[in-house]
């Protein structure tokens, strides 16, 4: 099948989902969203309508087969969706279709024309472009004639198509089928499956596009989040290796460190990894990098997984780095949270939300090794790949610190392996005992596309910051080494 390039799409209203679906839902077609109870189907529907009204000026009809309009309104009020207001403005209609089997007797032939008429009336009353049927399958619990219901549902979907409204139909997950009544066989255009999983006490919601006729789409499972702003999806795995690489050079924030690179710093929009055991000045180097960003008058976002912001600020002050003015000026944001606070996906989502909200030019994660406590090495790697991809696509300067376990034992390679191949620059910092004295050194392990100093450089940390040992400061004739 050749995909139709001209397939018109409408925004899903769900952050990230438009990217995953290659532009949104198919316009004027039915979309089936299925999943088990409590996975967020109704919310997807509500958000589709509310955002459609607020952002696309497309009125919408919500046909609820389960909750009353009052219940729905209350349930989504905490997400900032004011259904009453939208209803009063004539942009939204909620029709609660109540089916009580105990009240209904069936004798002889009938059809669902009443539902069609109701729907038609509601759509025409506000000029609706979007419709949500939540959950249509409730009809089956209210009526006996299954064969007739199926025929009528098929007719309903055709009718909705003819009517030109984009419709979300929600369905409860069946045992061996996507929906209990096999609605997926009627909806041939777009089927999305939601899933809610708890693995090792960490809950993750995931979304997968089962089919999307006439459109390319991501095939992975995408984590999604329901928070105070509604539903958002992380589309990161859909990214390709097609970002534009900059040839601009930015400072590492530390003059002597810049000196180790022939061009005087890192490439803009690159990713840098700093590895080292405990107490090797990883966070300090990260601090310089943050400062460098602030000095360029660019926003810097720091994810701190081990220290509270105050502690980071205080510690940097002891070596003469004062970041407080930049925090006050809104240039620097330190986001501190415990890695175990939530799952990796959630961390990633938080990062994504901050990227969108704060729009930093530089992002620092200190340290990424903490994340290993939340997920397996494979999961952490997958997350980091996505994180780095996201940052690269946005041309954000990224810096990750990674703690190596043990003082001089072999490093726990899992995280390093994961990131080192993705990182453009890799700095290794080390403490050694030389004749009973601590000897700090820094080695540029690799630096893609940059000629850099080849040997380890010794340095000290003083009250005025990091000082590189004079003997190891490179001279033009000193060993430079292209990579």
């Amino acid at each position, binding site marked *: 099948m050749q995909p139709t390039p001209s397939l018109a799409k409408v925004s899903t209203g769900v952050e990230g989902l438009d990217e995953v679906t290659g532009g949104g839902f198919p316009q004027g077609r039915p979309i089936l969203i299925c999943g088990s109870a409590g996975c967020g189907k109704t919310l997807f529907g509500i958000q589709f309508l509310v955002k459609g009204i607020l952002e696309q000026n497309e009125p919408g009809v919500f046909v609820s087969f389960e909750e009353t309009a009052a219940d729905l309104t209350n349930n989504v009020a905490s997400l900032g969706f004011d259904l009453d207001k939208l209803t009063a403005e004539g942009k939204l209609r909620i*029709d609660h*279709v*109540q*089916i009580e089997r105990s*009240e*209904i*007797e*069936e*004798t*002889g*032939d*009938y*059809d*669902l*024309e*009443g*539902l069609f*008429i*109701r729907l*038609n*009336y509601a759509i025409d009353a506000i000029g609706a472009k979007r419709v949500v049927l939540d959950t249509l399958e409730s*009809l089956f619990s209210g*009526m006996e004639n299954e064969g007739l219901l199926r025929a009528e549902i098929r007719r309903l979907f055709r009718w909705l198509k003819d009517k030109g409204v984009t419709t979300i139909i929600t369905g409860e997950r069946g045992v061996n089928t996507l929906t209990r009544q096999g609605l997926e066989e009627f909806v041939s255009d777009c089927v999305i499956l939601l899933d809610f999983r708890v693995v090792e006490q960490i809950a993750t919601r995931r979304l997968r596009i089962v089919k999307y006729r006439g459109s390319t789409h991501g095939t992975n499972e995408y984590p999604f989040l329901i928070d105070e702003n509604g539903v958002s999806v992380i589309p990161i795995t859909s990214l390709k290796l097609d970002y534009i690489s900059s040839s601009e050079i930015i400072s590492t924030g530390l003059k002597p460190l810049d000196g180790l690179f022939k061009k005087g710093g890192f490439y803009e929009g690159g990713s840098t990894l700093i590895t080292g055991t405990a107490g090797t000045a990883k966070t300090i180097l990260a601090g310089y990098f943050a400062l460098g960003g602030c000095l360029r008058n660019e926003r810097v976002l720091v994810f701190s997984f081990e220290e509270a912001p105050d502690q980071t600020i205080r510690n940097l002050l002891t070596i003469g780095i004062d970041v407080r003015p930049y925090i006050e000026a809104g240039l620097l944001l330190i986001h501190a949270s415990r890695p175990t606070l939530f799952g990796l996906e959630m961390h990633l989502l938080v990062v994504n939300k901050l990227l969108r909200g704060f729009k930093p030019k530089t992002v620092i994660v200190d340290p990424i090794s903490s994340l290993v406590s939340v997920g397996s090495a494979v999961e952490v790697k997958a997350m980091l790949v996505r994180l780095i991809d996201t940052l690269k696509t946005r041309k954000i300067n990224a810096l990750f610190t990674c703690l190596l376990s043990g003082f001089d034992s072999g490093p726990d390679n899992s995280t390093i392996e994961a990131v080192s191949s993705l990182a453009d620059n890799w700095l290794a910092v080390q403490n050694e005992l030389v004749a009973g004295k601590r000897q700090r050194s820094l080695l540029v392990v690799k630096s893609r596309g940059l000629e850099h100093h080849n040997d380890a450089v010794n340095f000290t940390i003083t009250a005025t910051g990091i000082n590189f040992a004079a003997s190891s400061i490179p001279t033009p004739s000193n060993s430079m080494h292209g990579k």
Partner: protein
Amino acid sequence: MENEQRWELRLYVAGQTPKSILALKNITRYCEENLEGRYSIEVIDLLKTPQLAEGDQIIAIPTLIRKVPVPIRKIIGDLSNEEKVLVGLNIRPLQPKNTP
């Protein structure tokens, strides 16, 4: 006592479809036979007044609603099964039918 009870029925249809015509014919006959003089049937055509569908929670067509006596009962379909309709509306036949 029961003889004093009035029956208020409402039949929802959508245009003059065979199903709707049959349903009205059926319910009129049952009422004539069992509730003579004590009933009223209001026919609502949703094609003309679609806004009325929501109030009585109409999905299927035709739908017969017993408004009085309460509680409200609903019967959907062309009402071709007399016994089911009478039981559903809780109408007791005045005299036993010829066929048991």
